[in-house]
């Protein structure tokens, strides 16, 4: 059901443009340039939002506000180029009346529309497509992603998702799976989070007794995702030797478990992802070129949040709405705080925004939330290829583990190079990895 909106303004250019934006947001818009026209509209339609100018050819918009039953209609916003004490007093006397002074700045207007949509719950979904559940956006960049998901979802082609951390690669992978209609499961594995020694077993499975600690036969993610979708995250972190085997699995459509001899057919759709430039990864020797072409039947770039325009505000309001549902609150984005959200570069993308909203929600005492980006508050709290984040109180063994795995990844899993860089022997590297592997088979490391 569409929310109704009245725009009463004798500036026809403004009224038409404001109406166009509101229509795009899902409102059914009634334009009026005189009091008489406005009275006709509100007489027969309940308005969820009224934008009311004061200086009109046949009277003041204030007359209309005095006449109508405020309980019958929703929000009223007085929008005036001639602020007066009387109109301002009228506005503050009722929570249903907002007071905006022309010219409206930045996203003041679209923010008002979003708030009303949020309160009424009548807003149209950004895109009416079940395949993109979990993805929100109205920007042109995200509409391209939505269209791509709808087009390529049902195909068998492999997809390579390229995007910065926090841009929603796994969410898009799940959407592709849902759009595929495949009966099997969606299974995800982060190739950068599993020690190299364990990755083969996690991917392809192993037979009992195939290596120390292999107490039972283990089904790899390829088999778990049979007739479904396998999401290989951080594919460029996979050791090159495994990339060769992965390519063979993809070419033959069969998997042989570690320590096994029997090949099992694996009808799996592959969606891989990386936050690196894949061509640069090929050039630096991190990614095999032949595997890239096998994985990237369809490459799909996910836009960073800073290139998604007003989606920042849309997402912030969505996260607040979810938190309101969870905690039974009625908090909202502080009017006027939109500009700072739009200007921030959001290096952590949607993940950073969600975290900033949650922090504001839980820590701010009032209902109007001032969302402050994480990276402004804590610019150093950012892991990257060249940096590791250590927290106070972290165990020394965990510090050692992080340094070793990150250095190995940096050296393309060349243990000799990593040992040299760390000033330890290659044997120590081997011993440590064996210890991590043992810990993992005991349930230490999540796949």
């Amino acid at each position, binding site marked *: 059901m569409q929310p109704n909106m009245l725009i009463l303004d004798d*500036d026809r*250019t*403004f009224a038409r443009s*404001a109406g*166009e*934006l509101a229509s795009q947001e899902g409102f059914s818009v009634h334009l009026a340039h005189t009091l008489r026209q406005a009275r006709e509209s509100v007489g027969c339609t309940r308005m969820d939002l009224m934008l009311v100018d004061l200086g009109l050819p046949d009277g003041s918009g204030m007359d209309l506000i005095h006449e109508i039953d405020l309980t019958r209609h929703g929000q009223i916003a007085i929008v005036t*180029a001639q602020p007066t004490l009387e109109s301002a007093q009228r506005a503050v006397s009722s929570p249903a009346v907002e007071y905006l002074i022309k*010219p409206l700045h930045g996203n003041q207007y679209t923010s008002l529309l979003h708030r009303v949509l949020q309160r009424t719950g009548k807003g149209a979904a950004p895109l009416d497509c079940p395949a993109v559940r979990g993805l929100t956006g109205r920007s*042109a960049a995200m509409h391209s992603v939505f269209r791509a998901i709808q087009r390529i979802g049902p195909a068998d082609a492999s997809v390579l998702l390229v995007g910065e951390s926090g841009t929603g690669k796994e969410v898009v992978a799940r959407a592709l799976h849902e759009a595929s209609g495949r009966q099997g499961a969606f299974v995800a594995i982060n190739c950068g989070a599993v020690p190299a020694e364990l990755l083969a077993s996690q991917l392809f499975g192993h037979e009992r007794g195939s290596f120390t600690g292999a107490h039972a036969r283990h089904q790899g993610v390829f088999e778990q995702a049979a007739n479904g979708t396998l999401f290989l995250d951080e594919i460029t972190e996979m050791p090159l030797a495994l990339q060769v085997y992965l390519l063979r699995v993809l070419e033959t459509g069969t998997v042989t478990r570690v320590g096994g001899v029997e090949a099992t057919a694996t009808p799996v759709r592959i969606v891989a992802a990386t936050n690196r430039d894949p061509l640069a990864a090929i050039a630096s020797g991190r990614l095999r070129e032949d595997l890239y072409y096998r994985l990237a039947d369809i490459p799909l770039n996910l836009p960073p949040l800073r290139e998604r325009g007003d989606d920042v505000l849309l997402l912030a309001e969505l996260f607040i709405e979810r938190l309101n549902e969870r905690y039974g609150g009625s908090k909202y984005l502080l009017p006027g705080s939109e500009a700072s959200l739009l200007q921030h570069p959001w290096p952590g993308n949607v993940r950073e925004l969600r975290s900033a909203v949650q922090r504001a929600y839980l820590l701010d005492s009032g209902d109007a939330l001032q969302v402050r980006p994480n990276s402004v508050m804590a610019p150093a709290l950012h892991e990257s290829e060249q940096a590791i984040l250590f927290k106070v109180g972290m165990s020394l063994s965990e510090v050692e583990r992080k340094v070793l795995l990150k250095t190995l990844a940096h050296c393309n899993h060349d243990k000799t190079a990593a040992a040299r860089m760390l000033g330890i022997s290659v044997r120590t590297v081997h011993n440590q990895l064996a210890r991590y592997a043992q810990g993992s088979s005991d349930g230490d490391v999540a796949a």
Partner: protein
Amino acid sequence: MNGGDADAHRNHALRNAINAALMSAQVVRRHLELGNCPQALDFLDGVDESCERCRVLIEQL
């Protein structure tokens, strides 16, 4: 209309004109993002018209 009234009137008109230009520009941007060039051009006329109003008002200062 005395000087004070004329200034207030001009201020009011200028605020309206700038407001219309900004709102029309937002619509143009939205249509361009969606690849709707004819609609963008249509609302660009609104930006032109509002800016022309601003120009006339500023020349009266």
